[in-house]
């Protein structure tokens, strides 16, 4: 009987020891160096895990800050006090804000863009989009059922005439709307009061014209008149580079469909 106990115990013990040693070696060899600043930063964060900074929680925000990818003014809960503490720990000047705002790249209100289907009873953009692509005749257009409105924690989005519109002065760049839009047409742009091509359609010009009066047909007139070469036409969609744009407004004058609009800060 003792023989059995000893045999089984030694087999189990021996294997356990071997595996334990293997794991110890592996954990040393494949060690991931964690920056200790992350722990320091995490300690001063409020810990509410609300996601208003745009990250998935305070842990993720701490990592993002240390990596230098997030602004220290990004936390509305911590505010000014937090920003100054963070500037101490990270050595970054407070007030270096990357004040981005979200914008819906579509201008298809009911009178401009044709409607294909009537989703009676379905009040969710994601649901409508997964069932035959949504009510809009344009496959890339705003669904207009309000998923982004519900996602925004700062009430910065309104639906007018079937089109979502972001009140850019209220936007805190949390990017929740960007994540929830099923058509992926909400983009982050550097600042408000800008000229933008408000269309995301990758369809050919004739198709766009059939579905919507204000869509971009890719004619390229805007690109030709732009004095700072800020407009590029990729395929059949024009895009304005906000870094190069000087807000002169020449593009909006020549656009045949009215796809270029100026987005003021207060809607």
């Amino acid at each position, binding site marked *: 009987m003792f023989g*059995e106990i000893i*045999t*089984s115990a030694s*087999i*189990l013990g021996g*294997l*356990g020891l071997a*595996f*334990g040693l*293997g*794991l110890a070696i*592996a*954990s040393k060899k*494949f*060690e*991931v160096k964690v920056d200790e600043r992350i722990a320091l930063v995490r300690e001063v964060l409020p810990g509410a895990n609300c996601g208003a900074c745009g990250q998935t929680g305070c842990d993720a925000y701490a990592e993002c800050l240390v990596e230098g990818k997030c602004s220290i003014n990004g936390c509305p809960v911590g505010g000014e006090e937090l920003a100054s503490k963070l500037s101490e720990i990270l050595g970054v000047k407070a007030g270096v804000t990357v004040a981005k705002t979200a914008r819906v790249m579509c201008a298809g209100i009911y009178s401009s863009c044709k409607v294909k289907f009537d989703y009676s009873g*379905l009040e*969710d953009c*994601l*649901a409508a989009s*997964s*069932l035959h692509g949504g009510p809009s005749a344009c496959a890339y257009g705003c669904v207009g059922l309000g998923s982004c409105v519900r996602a925004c924690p700062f009430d910065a989005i309104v639906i007018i005439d079937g089109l979502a519109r972001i009140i850019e002065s209220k936007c805190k760049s949390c990017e929740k709307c960007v994540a929830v839009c099923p058509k992926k047409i909400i983009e982050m742009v550097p600042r408000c009061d800008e000229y933008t091509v408000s269309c995301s359609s990758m369809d050919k010009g004739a198709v766009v014209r059939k579905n919507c009066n204000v869509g971009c047909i890719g004619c390229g007139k805007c690109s030709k008149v732009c004095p700072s070469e800020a407009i590029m036409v990729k395929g059949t969609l024009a895009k304005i580079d906000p870094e190069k744009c000087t807000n002169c407004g020449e593009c909006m004058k020549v656009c045949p469909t009215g796809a270029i609009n100026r987005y003021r800060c207060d809607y």
Partner: protein
Amino acid sequence: MNQTIAIIISAILVKNMVLSRFLGICPFLGVSKKLSTAVGMGGAVVFVMTLSSGITTAIYKAILDTENLRYLKTIVFILVIASLVQFVEIILKKFVPPLYKALGIYLPLITTNCAVLGAALLGIDEGYSVFNSTVFGFGAGVGFTLALVLFAGVRERLEYCDIPESFKGLPISLVAAALVSVAFLGFQGLFGI
């Protein structure tokens, strides 16, 4: 060769780990809410199952396959699987950090997952060689991933449906899983397996 192919088809379709043998229901219901996490979890399980089936069968044939030591197989297999999962976690954290973050708590869940232990024990029961046992582990993992991915698709659609209050959440998921399982009954007798 024929036996190897039969093993793979059996493990993936005919005797699917989740939908026919009902092993590994815990991660099946826990991780199948989003397609991306389902795929990630499936990949980790394939990796762990293949390696663990091979290693456990090798250890069994080398050390435990004698009259008075066979009873140790359960606990030794658990030891092997636990160490393997720890190892996988270390590798993932170093080489694929986004997947490590996405899986989070689910990776240690694979340790206590009856599907992984089941694949190892079933390989022994059927008397497979080390090679065939590894193939069986791989097939079982792929079958598990298949079930997970299919069910993730079903669940994503289920979210937009009008479900009665008392069925919301887990109950309707279980009913849907049962229906998917019945659908897989259609594979019985495939190629005479």
